């Protein structure tokens, strides 16, 4: 049995301790905004927040997800999340969009720790998030604009 707090809601779930948080979020709770890209913490598509800090949900066992979890579905309630979403739209960042949940979640985490990151700081913080469409320069510009 796992107790989870996701987007402000409490859940009691009968899932194995070792089940990655990603699959609990997607397949058990049906929140499909968090994506599966690699399963090995290599691409960042599955990024969510644990107590406001970006984590890879694909390699985080549900038993380790103790705290407040936030997913892309609720990031618009956060002022930084809102600003980033707007900057993403203003600059036309997404192409296919599949990685962008994870990119935005990671960017919110970055701006929380560093409200005005320079280009190199953004690259350092964001290089774990792959985008096969190659939207990187627009992501950097959007983070600087937010």
């Amino acid at each position: 049995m796992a107790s989870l707090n996701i987007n402000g809601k409490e859940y009691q779930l009968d899932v194995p301790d070792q089940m990655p948080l990603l699959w609990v979020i997607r397949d058990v709770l049906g929140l499909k905004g968090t994506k599966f890209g690699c399963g090995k913490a290599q691409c960042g598509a599955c990024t969510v927040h644990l107590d406001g800090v970006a984590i890879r949900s694909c390699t985080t066992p549900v038993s380790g997800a103790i705290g407040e979890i936030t997913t892309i579905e609720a990031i618009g309630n956060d002022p930084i999340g809102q600003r980033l979403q707007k900057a993403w739209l203003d600059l036309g960042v997404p192409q296919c969009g599949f990685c962008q949940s994870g990119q935005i979640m990671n960017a919110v985490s970055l701006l929380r720790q560093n409200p005005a990151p320079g280009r190199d700081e953004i690259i350092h913080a964001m290089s774990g998030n792959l985008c096969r469409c190659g939207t990187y320069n627009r992501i950097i510009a959007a983070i600087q604009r937010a």
Partner: protein
Amino acid sequence: MTVDTKDPVLLANVSRRRFMLGVAGGSALVLAARWDWAHANTEEEQKYGAAGMPGGWTDDPNVFIQIDADGTVTLVNHRSEMGQGIRTSVAMVMADELGANWDQVKVQQAVGDHSRYGNQNTDGSRSMRHWYGPLRRAAAAARQMLEQSAANQWLVPVEEVRAGVHEVVHEPSGRTLGFGELAEAARGLEVPDHTSLKLKSDGDLRFLGKETGIINGELKSAFPKAIDGEDIVSGKAVFGADVDVGDRLYAVIARPPVYGATLKNFDDAAALKVPGVKKVMSIEGTGQPAAFKPLGGVAVVATNTWAAIKGREALSIDWDNGPAEDNSAYTSGSYREALEKRSQSPGKVIREEGDLAKAMESAAQKVSATYYMPHMAQAPMEPPNATVRIEKDRAEVWAPVQNPEATRNTVAERLGFDPANVIVNVTLLGGGFGRKSKPDFAIEAASIAQTFEGQPVTLQWTREDDLQHSYFHTVSVDHLEAGLDENGKTIGWLHRSLSPSISSLFAPDPEHKVDFELGMGLNTTPFNIPALQLENPPASAHVRIGWFRAVYNLPHAWAIQSFAHELSVAAGRDHRDYLLELLGEDRKIPNPSVGDTWNYGEDPDIYTINTGRMRGVIERATDEARWGKELPKGRGMGLAFHHSFVSYTAVVFDVEVDDAGELIIHRADIAFDCGPQANPERIRSQMEGACVMGIGIALQNEISFQDGVAQQSNFDRYLLPRMTEAPREVRVHLVDNPDVPMGGVGEPGLPPVAPALVNAIYAATGKRIRSLPVGDQLKA
């Protein structure tokens, strides 16, 4: 026309040609009467362009446009969205011509059905090129029906009314009626004949050809907003496995590691003990050639994806490599050596001009080089997946597929169903790049779902599955030799190009490139050289070879554009000047004159190869990059161009390599000429994205095989460009060229990127890279 809408004559017209199929069903207006476009096509026209595609085209407004009484305009997009922005661009084309207010536009995704929508295969950079005209005509027809409807209500000549934005205006009296108010009556009108359609002039367009968004810090226009933008940034966008189909099962499949191998036996005892695992079952495979059919293997079906993955890990499987024949000995290093050896001897001649032997004999200087590009996997961020529900003799599919019609037909074939009973819902694609042109994963899902009547099953490919069982980009060796005269001018050019063919996927391996592969920048080599010989020695396929964005243009551009640079170096000349000299005087090269029977399916009289446009992009990119400017030590500029998908691209990189061999990409300047531009902002984003993807091809991408098994299985060893690899600045320069037919956009940005980058590395370091990826070669 001054008849009243109640005029019985008009109603009689309605009953005669009525064709009441709603795009969304049950709403107020579905424009009536089917467009009779079949007669507009001569037999000659049907060979090329959209007409030459399976399913052809339609400009019937009934198929694409619906207007509700509340004014909502629903536009149908029948092409697959995979990041190119086609859902927005298709809607822009129709909304602009119709006069729709963007905020009242909704986009509905079509199911797979060629008989209704025309061709839907989203591949080959064809969506706008083939559909810009038909969609504008469909919207113009609908607009004229709204105008006629208003004229009828006001009892005025239709010449006195015109559609504004979401309303029709009677200019003399200033009266207006909204599109929603006119919809009901307009549906009774006949669709205007082609000859009476009046498309808007460029000056009356609000969206098409206009820059939108923020470019270089300047807001061009806030509209039209991307159709799926808000859903994407809030996690609501629905990609394949995100579909809400209620209670369902999840599956993964263990596939034979070697192409052509089969399942001998398996032990599922441990797998069935994994909590959540419901069933383990074998999946029927396919012999070679596999086409779009599954590889076979063992499926694990569970209540969630993780349980299915854990169940698969617990399987014990014996594979039979016998049917794989020599595929089980396929090893990249020795295969490459064999191709390189073969490239030293003459091969099948595909184009011959002048006397090469004589030219080489008289040459003052000879240059030769051999280039290698490895297999690559498309690796879209969303791995393949499909959801299928089967009830009796009917199947419903939800999947991120580039080719919904092929999905429908191959799923129907596998299940033994009538294709009419297979519905293919196309979700958003989390990237495609050619991988999702093959619907094998949907057939796999259907095979599993057949066992669970009435219950949806989602088949998920893991990243390991994707990288090990892709339809891989081909592998290639290109050997070139040239002779230069005493002035450094190239007088002889030999190119031997070897790579296994995609056609090996569908028929016994021809071991030679076929027309569409040769036509991707090989037999269309545009240089004006007195003696030129192109050869294609054999190369056999040992894995599934498939389309990868830009396909055979990648190795051809890589080799030709690298070698052209090497020649300029040998001649002691500036690369740009030398390249322009190789192109010679501006001229049009008729495709048949160089043996190109393909030309991307386009009419060679209309889309003739144009070296003037090549010169145009080369000059634009180099001028914008300030080619020739002084650069510090360790820094250099590289150039390459390529013509593909009937568009023209040139790229200049400005790079630096430090003493430790670290590469810094300061800037990329990309000049692109696709003729008329529907949605320039998305053209820019395609060029920016192609630049990053091409950097990955140059520096990182490689799938290698050992004994038939792919050696990379996740992003720890199959390296993709990250933000660290992105150029510090990318500048896209769109060539204003509205007076030629429209070219492709999604793919043509990619081929020149890798050679331009490698040429820049040479300029910075003097080190020539001939084997991709660059990897750590700069550190050696």
